């Protein structure tokens, strides 16, 4: 089960028509899908649409009631191929994934789908992971829409606008026989807002009808000569139909309260930021009444030439807000204006930025330079927002400087109790004996290994491609194999074939570590084939080691508890020094602690309340024996293992300490042993509701220990002054 549960929120999907729905973007999209009569939904998790998948999973009952089929697809390619059901039948289908990485994976299927075209509405909801908070390379989904001739929606970040775009997206897809991409920007997914609901619709045509009355049309299949015909269709029929639909339905919005002879064109997704910029410059109010006309592109591909020409007419200049690069839309509009012999001058990247996010700062500064050029009298120069002031102005919001040495970066890292941490602790220890290796990393929480304190991993080539990323390093003369990492999520996504199968076939001498934490953990703890949990709607418990042996791996070992650091270290040494040809696969298994804690903590609390014997563990460090060299931190990096001022009156440097957030995972103890660290670590065990035996044995032990302790204190007497003994105890 996923890390975050939407079991309660999904009940909102049952809200009847005409009521105000309050919630997050992802819930609104799900509601919109139901309101559109969707027949089937698939997708692959990944920020920012991970929670959309979780919502759909938790809403499975509601979906089933409406006759909607939902799948957790094996990959984005699988999800995209699923849309094949809309090619021959009037079935509406929707898929979702993270973009551009997911779109990269899906693009083979998407290109085939877009070539033959669709009968039923096909909606591809891409979570555009761009700008601050993004975890991937900075690229645009726009290119995919252009290259395959799919239409791209980029609605205003407003729940009503997003819900509408889902609904007209299906209609547009059907009207133009083309799959439609709906771009949900990073912040829109978790945007909390409201909209007025409509009735959920049961699909009119069912999958059963399709399956029992199969249809085919060879002209829809991508094979010559049909493939050549598809290209003509795209340009001569589907595109004109789409343009007609977009114009007729007025999907793009012209907001022209003001009658200025210059205007603004913006991608829908940037609308709120642009309006905020105008408001800060005193050119619009909070309701969007603007002195400058604004043309909002809720469809960013195709650009409607007629609408652009109409908007540009009688205008001296236009400012285009198009985020990211290359500047596809700007080039497109330049071409439209030139062909129309329009006189309006187009600005965009010249006053904004070519690369990077269009933050309020970038947008407001761009607006200011633009308006200064065409109507300087509109600008109240002595009442400007602080952000547009010169950087050296004392009024500038960043006038107060703190250096990087004072405010450190705080990148994400392994959680307290993360079972992946000991894998890298063990590798660090193994490498003390075997020396360093080239390490090909993968996508997932385990990629945090590249950061301090581990500093392990040289490249990452994509999800599930850790092993493939090591393929180039084959040299019979090398004394050392290469080391590759892969998560269980990436393994089932494609790594089994692209990595393991490839290494077997090419007799690759690599050591592959598959990090098996029982979930697709980095994306929010979704179940996968090898998950250990029972999932009522999915088939789980398919072991990874069996899969790798199935494709021909001879040397495979599963370590079922990553906390056995010494065992794992020895396994690493074995694998790294093995003379066995072909890939050596280590499956390092332990459940993701976020998910485990979420499951077990309430159970333990309940048991304790019910009077059952419950054991709680945590670690500690003796401040008197810790000398403050922090070597324990350098092989752990746990958030709960920190530093604190040295209580020793003679020492200055801070000592290590265990914070109360410690979950007693055991790594500190294991590391203290495996790395022969220091004797400062201890484990505390607190037993709630002890049994009669517990109490009996404890009272005997306590009596014995107290007797010896009073002897010890007698021998130390006379060192501390009498009065302050109590103080010292508390210190």
């Amino acid at each position: 089960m996923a890390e975050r549960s939407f079991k309660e929120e999904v009940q909102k999907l049952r809200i009847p028509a005409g009521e105000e729905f309050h919630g997050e973007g992802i819930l609104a999209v799900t509601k919109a899908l139901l309101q559109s009569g969707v027949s089937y939904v698939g997708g692959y998790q990944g920020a920012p649409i991970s929670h959309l998948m979780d919502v759909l999973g938790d809403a499975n009952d509601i979906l089933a009631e409406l006759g909607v089929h939902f799948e957790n697809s094996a990959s984005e390619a699988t999800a995209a191929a699923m849309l094949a059901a809309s090619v021959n039948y009037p079935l509406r289908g929707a898929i979702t994934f993270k973009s551009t990485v997911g779109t990269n994976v899906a693009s083979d299927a998407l290109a085939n789908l877009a070539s033959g075209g669709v009968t039923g509405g096909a909606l591809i909801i891409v979570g555009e992971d761009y700008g601050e908070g993004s975890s991937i390379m900075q690229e645009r989904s726009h290119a995919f829409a252009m290259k395959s001739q799919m239409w791209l929606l980029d609605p205003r970040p407003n729940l009503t606008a997003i819900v509408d775009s889902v609904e007209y997206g299906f209609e547009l897809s059907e009207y133009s026989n083309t799959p439609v991409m709906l771009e949900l920007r990073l912040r829109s997914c978790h945007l909390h807002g409201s909209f007025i609901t409509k009735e959920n619709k049961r699909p009119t045509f069912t999958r059963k009808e399709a399956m029992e009355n199969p249809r085919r049309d060879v002209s829809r299949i991508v094979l010559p000569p049909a493939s050549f015909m598809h290209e003509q269709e795209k340009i001569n029929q589907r595109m004109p139909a789409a343009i007609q639909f977009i114009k007729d339905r007025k999907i793009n919005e012209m907001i022209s309260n003001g009658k200025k002879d210059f205007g603004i064109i913006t991608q829908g997704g940037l609308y709120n930021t642009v309006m905020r910029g105008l408001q800060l410059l005193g050119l619009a109010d909070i309701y969007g009444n603007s002195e400058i006309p604004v043309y909002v592109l809720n469809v960013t591909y195709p650009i409607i030439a007629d609408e652009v020409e109409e908007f540009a007419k009688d205008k001296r200049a236009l400012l285009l807000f198009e985020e990211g690069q290359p500047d596809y839309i700007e080039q497109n509009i330049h071409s439209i204006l030139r062909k129309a012999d329009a006189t309006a001058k187009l600005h965009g990247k010249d006053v904004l930025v070519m690369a990077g996010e269009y933050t309020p700062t970038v947008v407001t500064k761009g607006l200011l330079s633009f308006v200064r050029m065409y109507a300087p009298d509109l600008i109240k120069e002595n009442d400007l927002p602080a952000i547009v002031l010169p950087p050296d102005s004392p009024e500038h919001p960043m006038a107060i400087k703190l250096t990087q040495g004072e405010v450190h970066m705080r990148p994400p890292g392994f959680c307290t109790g993360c079972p992946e941490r000991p894998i890298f602790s063990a590798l660090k220890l193994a490498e003390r004996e075997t020396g360093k290796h080239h390490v090909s990393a993968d996508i997932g929480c385990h990629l945090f290994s590249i950061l301090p304190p581990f500093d392990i991993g040289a490249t990452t080539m994509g999800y599930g491609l850790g092993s493939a990323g090591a393929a180039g390093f084959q040299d019979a003369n090398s004394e050392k194999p290469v080391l590759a990492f892969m998560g269980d999520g990436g393994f089932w996504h494609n790594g089994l074939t692209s990595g393991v199968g490839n290494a077997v076939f090419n007799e690759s001498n690599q050591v592959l570590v598959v990090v098996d934490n029982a979930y697709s953990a980095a994306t929010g703890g979704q179940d996968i084939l090898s998950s250990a949990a029972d999932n009522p709607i999915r088939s789980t418990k398919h072991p990874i080691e069996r899969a790798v042996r199935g494709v021909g791996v001879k040397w495979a070992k599963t370590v079922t508890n990553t906390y056995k650091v010494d065992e794992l270290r020895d396994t690493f040494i074995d694998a790294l020094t093995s003379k066995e040809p072909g890939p050596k696969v280590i499956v390092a298994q332990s459940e993701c602690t976020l998910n485990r804690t979420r499951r077990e903590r309430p159970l333990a609390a309940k048991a304790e309340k019910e009077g059952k014997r419950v054991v709680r563990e945590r670690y500690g460090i003796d401040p008197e024996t810790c000398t403050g060299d922090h070597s324990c931190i350098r092989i752990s990096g746990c958030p709960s293992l920190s530093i604190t001022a040295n209580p020793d009156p003679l020492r200055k440097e801070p000592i290590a300490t265990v914070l109360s957030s410690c979950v007693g995972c055991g790594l500190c103890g294991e590391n203290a042993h495996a790395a022969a660290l220091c004797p400062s670590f201890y484990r505390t065990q607190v037993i709630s509701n002890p049994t009669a035996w517990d109490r009996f044995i404890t009272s005997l032990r306590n009596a014995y220990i107290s007797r010896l302790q009073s002897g010890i204190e007698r021998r130390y007497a006379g060192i501390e002054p009498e009065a302050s003994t109590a103080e010292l105890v508390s210190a």
Partner: protein
Amino acid sequence: MTQATQTRAITMAILAMGGEGGGVLADWMVSLGEHSGYWAQTTSVPGVAQRTGATIYYVELFPRTADGAEPILSTMPTPGEVDIVLASELMEAGRSVVRGLVTPKNTTLIASTHRVYSMMEKTALGDGRVDSDTIIENCMKAAAKFVGGDFAKIAEESGSVISSVLFGALAGTGRLPFTRKEFESAIERAGVGVATSLNAFARGFEYAQNALKPASTGVPIQIGMKPVSVEDTKAATDAAIAADPTAAVGARLSAQAAHIQNTYPASVRATLVHGIKRTTEYQDVKYADEFLARVASVYALDLAHGDGSFRLTNEAARYTALWMTYEDTIRVAAIKVRARRFDRIHKEARAKNEQVVGIMEFLHPQVQEVADTLPTALGKWVLRSKPVNALITRVSGNGIKVNTTSAFGYTTLYILSRLRPIRRRSLRFNEEQLLIDAWLTTVMDLASKNYGLACEVAETQSLVKGYGETHANGLANFDAIMAELPRTLVAADPVARQIALRTAALAEESGEKLRALLR
């Protein structure tokens, strides 16, 4: 703020770390707004940021009007235009200043001043901590109003999480047009841990109200209270000891304390008192006398060549005491069996009386450490004897877990702790005394030639610490730097050179940087 005059949204940013409840705080704000007749919008950046990294949540509120017109709210904060910033930790507060979210024109900054150390601060071999005061000063400079306090402590005391305290402090500032009851209702509606959250909320509320209470001058007080630091406490204790050394020791050391009071200047007394107590606890009063004898020779030279600060005496005394009480098995055992340690652990585990507490030690005595503790001849034999070596490695090679709360485990450590009398005859004791004297001789030799360098050489001893491999590495670095001394002495700036060498040794574990400097 009334509906008629308000033209801009109320803007609020929350800076937190993954897992700290920043999302819960944002949800409360939305619930508060929506139930008080406001449009509410919140956005966050989900994804990997939830895994302990820095995260920003952003909330905008705008009053609803009769015509139902929907305002256009921003999904991102604009630097310079944020009304309220809540930061769950001091460095995050610093980050909000760096990002321009906090401005003297309009921002109320509510920040917890406790520290969650960054990886860079934690992994340093020495002290890598950032100065809290610098950040606090800048927060005060940057904000229109700054409510800073150790909210983590308040949260812990009230059995809740920091988000509840911050929400209470937000209400307490009176910056939002909502009543206290409306705030509390938002917590109640969320329905999770309501009682403890409300308790923490109340503490935060009061804290902010007091912090912003106008003083008699009518100017709002801006409190930047940070947690009381151990360093401050130490300084106060040391001042008291310097004033009256005899009051700081028991009967067995009263003669030594009186001697310290009569012979030494106030600036070194506390260090000496700590030194005699430490050496006596470690060995015996005679050992404390030996410590004082060593310090006396340094002090004589300090009087002759020093600048009156007695820095040399202070640092030499500090590191002599630390070196004389080197970390051996007996010391570790003696600390582990003390009653005060048991008390501390009970407190730390928040164990209630009816609960049973067990303590498990993770020990890893190596052949060298075992031999170190034995009488010199026996120790040497152990090191030479292959079968004994193998035996020790077999028993403790993968570490030993000792249950100190069991009779057997406790007795084992107890016996070890009582080996104190044989320490003087042990292999390591004699070796360490020779090393200490050699180092002190060098320090004293330098006192007349270059006082500053002598002080730095005294401080170089701080490299020798830890156990096993860490200790061996530290000692090797120390030896290398000491061997370099003849060349350091003739360097352009010997003091700077010595500091550079020591810093390089602490820069990273592999010793690369130090080796590069020594090349």
